[in-house]
Structure formats: C-alpha cells, structure tokens
C-alpha cells in the first residue's frame, strides 16, 4: 500500500522542483542560524545564492561525523532549545555520542515517513505491530512507534530483550508485523525453536528490518525461518532515524528514498567526487525539510548505489541498493578490501551454515591474519573430526575464491558470538597500526 500517493508517486520533474525549493530554504536557514555551516561555506567561498540548481549541490562542503562530535552536544541545532521537543543520540561506540534534536514538526515529518515505510512493508490500519527495536536514545524504537500510530496500526512497544517473553506475547497478542534488527529476528527464530514455538503458527505476514547491514541470503533465511515477507529499512539519527528509505514489499529490490525530504548522492569515498547512478560508493544525504537538525551533505560512511529506474510499485522515488558495508567497516587485509557482508554471503551460500560469524583481524610479523569465527549449528555438526575439518577448509576456500583473501576458519560453539539484543559485533580488529 502507498501511504502518501501524491508525494510518493510524484512525477520526477515536479519532485525535483520541490527538492530544489526546499533545499534553498534549508541553506538560507543554516547559513543564518548555524555558525558551523556559515564558517564552512565561507571557507569554501560559497553562499546559498550560489546554488542555482540541484546540480550545484556538489559545490557545498561535506559534513562528517567528526563535525558533529566537534559541535557536541547542541552546536548543530538550527532552532532555539525552546522549539526542540525531542533529543536522541547515537550509541557513540567511539568517543562521544552524536546528539540530534527534533521540533514538533520534525516529529510529525518523521511519523509520516515511518508510516510510509511501514505501509511499503505491508502494514496498514488494523495490523498489530510487534516493535522490538530498542526504545530510548536510539531512534529505532520511537521512530517505528510514532509511524505505526500515524498509520493507525496497533503498536506493541515491546522494545529489545527478554526474548522468551517476546515469544509468549507473539503467541498471545497475535501481532502481524515484526520490526527489529535482522540479527534479532534470527535470534527470535532460534529462541522460538528452543521453546518449541513454530513461527508458522504465529500470525506474522511481514517484517521491516534494519539498523544494521544484512545480505540477500540473510533475508531468505529470515523469510524461511520466520514465515514472513522481509523488507529492508534504512535510516540514521543524523539524517532522521528510521524511515529515510525503505523497500517496497512489491519489488523488494532496493529502498525508496523519501526524496521530498532528503537528497541522496553517491560519492567516491577517497576523492569525494560525485558518482553517477549505478555506481557504488558512499551514501551522502542532505535534509531539505528538517527544522531542529538540518544536515548538509552528510557522509554516512554507508556503501550503496542509486537506481533511478521506475519501480513496479508505482513510487517514483529513487532506490538505494541495500547497504553492503560501511567505509569504516571496510577491512583492508593485505591490501584487499573486505566487507563483513561479503563473508556473510559466502557463508549463506553454503548448505546448513548459519549467518553467525565474526571476523577477527590480527597482525603478526607485519602480516595481517584474518580469522573467521563461525558457529557450529546442528545442521553442520558431525561426530567425525574429518567432516568438520573439511567444512573449515571449504569455507576458507570459498572466501579465497570470492574475495581473494586468505582466511583461517575457526568453528566455535553456538551463541559464543555476541549478538542479538542489538547489533551483532561482526568485526574485531586487533591490529595496532
């Protein structure tokens, strides 16, 4: 279902006209109210008036995560705190978190975009949404929550954790839509199996999964184990939160970006140069309607590409391919670029192997050593040492073939790789560079 027919199916020329008008207003406003942007524009020798068409966007300087940290906590806000009704923050695994604010209208916009996203994922009025994204400073829980209410669906604000209780609630409350991270979805599947609950007997029809990179193979596994149709959702707090882009359940081929609110670009992460449609690179976003926390050319560090081709669902908004990795997740191992998602694809192509893995990189005698830890589930376990060693060798060989990098495969006991309630830890880099 399309929630906002007028904007989601708008002809591209009209859409781009709106984007440009809104971009100009945003630039004028940040120039006037945020010292950081005014200084950056000055340094680049540019004023908002120099941007005369959408194509001029690339002349503006980038904003990076470091810029947000430097202006911690409220330096990037474009409205007085009187007008800020909500504050969220990123997890801040390295250093300070990044803080974002919302006006009442921003919250309204966010709810609208999340309502669109849930509708694109198969939800409508009358659905019961089991929302297992974490509630709190993290944008996932509340973002989905407001969108679900806006859509007119019933939302169960279960948040993350206490998985056994979640399964019980799924049985009793009969939710029809599941929202959580893809790794938590698989964890729910495992715990349900341990409790002898079959997802086939539950009432889910679809799930909207995101907040971490995942692969096409992982989608198939979730769909098979949870008996539902899985779509990918994208968002980040610096830009809005969940709802920036979402896959339609009709095509499940790329995520429609809410282009009446954001302008997306793909750049070469090395040179900063803007890349054409169909080229893979770093995703960059500019917000054109946000009030409290407008953001200009924000470097997401997420790797994706853009597709302008019309979609069978009728939406005219550009689609981004599923995020295949992060520029800062990218490991360079003996000169080869390696994304965790590539390893995941290799594993998922192998019969019985589950996507529970972790990459550990060490440096010994100036040589990078990649170890891939893979959990041994019942499907691949054998009572014969030889069989397990053959499996290790086969995984190693496939990684070498597909990625061109040598890896030692280490089989580990189930659930020893930290995961599930939130995001899985996919990479441990022990190299001291």
């Amino acid at each position, binding site marked *: 279902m399309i929630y906002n027919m007028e904007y989601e199916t708008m002809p591209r020329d009209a859409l781009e006209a709106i984007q440009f008008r809104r971009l100009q207003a945003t630039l004028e406003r940040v120039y006037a109210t945020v010292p950081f942007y005014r200084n950056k524009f000055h340094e680049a020798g540019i004023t908002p008036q120099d941007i005369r068409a959408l194509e001029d966007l690339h002349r503006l300087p980038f904003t990076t995560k470091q810029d947000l940290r430097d202006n911690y906590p409220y330096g990037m806000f474009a409205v007085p705190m009187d007008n800020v009704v909500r504050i969220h923050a990123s997890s801040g695994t390295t250093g300070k978190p990044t803080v974002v604010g919302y006006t009442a209208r921003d919250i309204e916009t966010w709810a609208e975009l999340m309502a669109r996203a849930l509708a694109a994922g198969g939800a409508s009025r009358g659905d019961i949404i089991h929302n297992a994204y974490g509630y709190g400073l993290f944008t996932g829980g509340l973002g989905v929550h407001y969108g679900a209410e806006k859509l007119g669906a019933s939302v169960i604000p279960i948040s993350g954790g206490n998985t056994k209780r979640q399964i019980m609630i799924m049985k009793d409350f009969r939710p029809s839509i599941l929202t959580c991270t893809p790794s938590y979805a698989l964890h729910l599947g495992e715990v349900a199996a*341990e409790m002898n609950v079959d997802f086939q007997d539950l009432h889910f029809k679809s799930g909207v999964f995101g907040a971490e990179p995942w692969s096409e193979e992982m989608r198939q596994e979730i769909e098979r184990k949870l008996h539902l149709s899985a779509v990918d959702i994208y968002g980040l707090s610096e830009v809005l939160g969940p709802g920036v882009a979402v896959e339609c359940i009709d095509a499940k081929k790329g995520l429609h970006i809410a282009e009446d609110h954001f302008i997306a670009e793909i750049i070469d992460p090395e040179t900063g140069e803007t890349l054409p449609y169909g080229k893979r690179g770093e995703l960059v976003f500019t917000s054109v309607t946000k009030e409290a926390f407008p953001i200009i050319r924000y470097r997401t560090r997420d790797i994706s590409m853009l597709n302008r081709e019309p979609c069978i669902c009728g939406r005219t908004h550009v689609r981004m391919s599923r995020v295949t990795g992060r520029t800062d997740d990218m490991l360079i191992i003996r000169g080869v670029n390696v994304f965790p998602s590539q390893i995941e694809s290799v594993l998922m192509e192998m019969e019985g192997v589950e996507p529970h893995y972790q990459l550990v990189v060490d440096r010994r005698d100036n040589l990078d050593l990649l170890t891939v830890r893979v959990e*041994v*589930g*019942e499907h691949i*376990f*054998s*009572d*014969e*040492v030889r069989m*397990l*060693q053959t499996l290790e060798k086969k995984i190693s060989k496939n990684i070498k073939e597909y990625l061109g990098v040598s890896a030692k495969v*280490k*089989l*580990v*006991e*189930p*659930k*020893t790789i930290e995961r599930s309630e939130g995001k899985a830890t996919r990479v441990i880099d022990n190299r001291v560079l």
Partner: protein
Amino acid sequence: MRVEQISVFLENKAGRLSEVTRILSEAGVNIRALSLADTSDFGILRLIVNDNDKAKEALKENGFTVGRTDVVAVEVGDHPGGLHRILEVLYQANVNVEYMYAFVQQSGDHAVIIFRFDNLEEAVKILTESGIKVIDGSVLYGM
C-alpha cells in the same frame, strides 16, 4: 543391533569438558562410555549414556550443539588377538572403521568396543556372519 551415541561440539578451551559433565550430572545422566577427538581448535565428545533424550535436552538447553549417531557395540575376546580378529574380518570385507573406543563395562568375560562405521548395516551383517557378537542398545544401556 545398533547403539545410539550422542556427540557434542566443544571449543578447545578450559572448562568446556567439565561444563558437559556438570550438566549431565545435574540432569542425573550416567555416562557409560566416552571418547574425545580433538584438533588444535575444537573437540568432539562422543558419549554413550543411560538416557539419550534427557542428556540431549539438558545439553541443548545449555547452548551446546548436540548430534546423534548410530554406532555398534561389539564383544571382543579379552585376550591377545581378540581385537585383531575383529579388525581382520572387517578389513577382509573392506569395511572402513571411522573410529572406535572402549566401553567401561565388561560383557561377561568379554570386553566391549564401540565402533563407528560409515556403512553400519553392512558391518553388522559381516560381524554377525563371522560369529562375532554385537550387543543391542537396549542391553548395553543397562549394563
């Protein structure tokens, strides 16, 4: 004429084996025979116990990966050449032994050896035809 064996995947690190024995002890499961095969990274613990279902359930509940395999318990003369005779029979018939280990209890004045074959049916047929006694699980668990 088969015996059910359970196998457990273990990482090669301190305390994992004792974790298994603790779980089985708390579940009231008696271990009748065991063998541990290990590499530098991992080990596979194979067990014959008095209650397979209970053992498997308790281990799985504690997060272990558990498998089940059919193996064969064979009576072996407790004298020089006893085991050799059996291996000779299997060798002549071209039956491959994946691994084997000793059972704790004696069967009368015979020792008992657990065999894992890739072709169990064939192996049992050859052993019985050669007059070698194969012990059924129902008998073995109670020994």
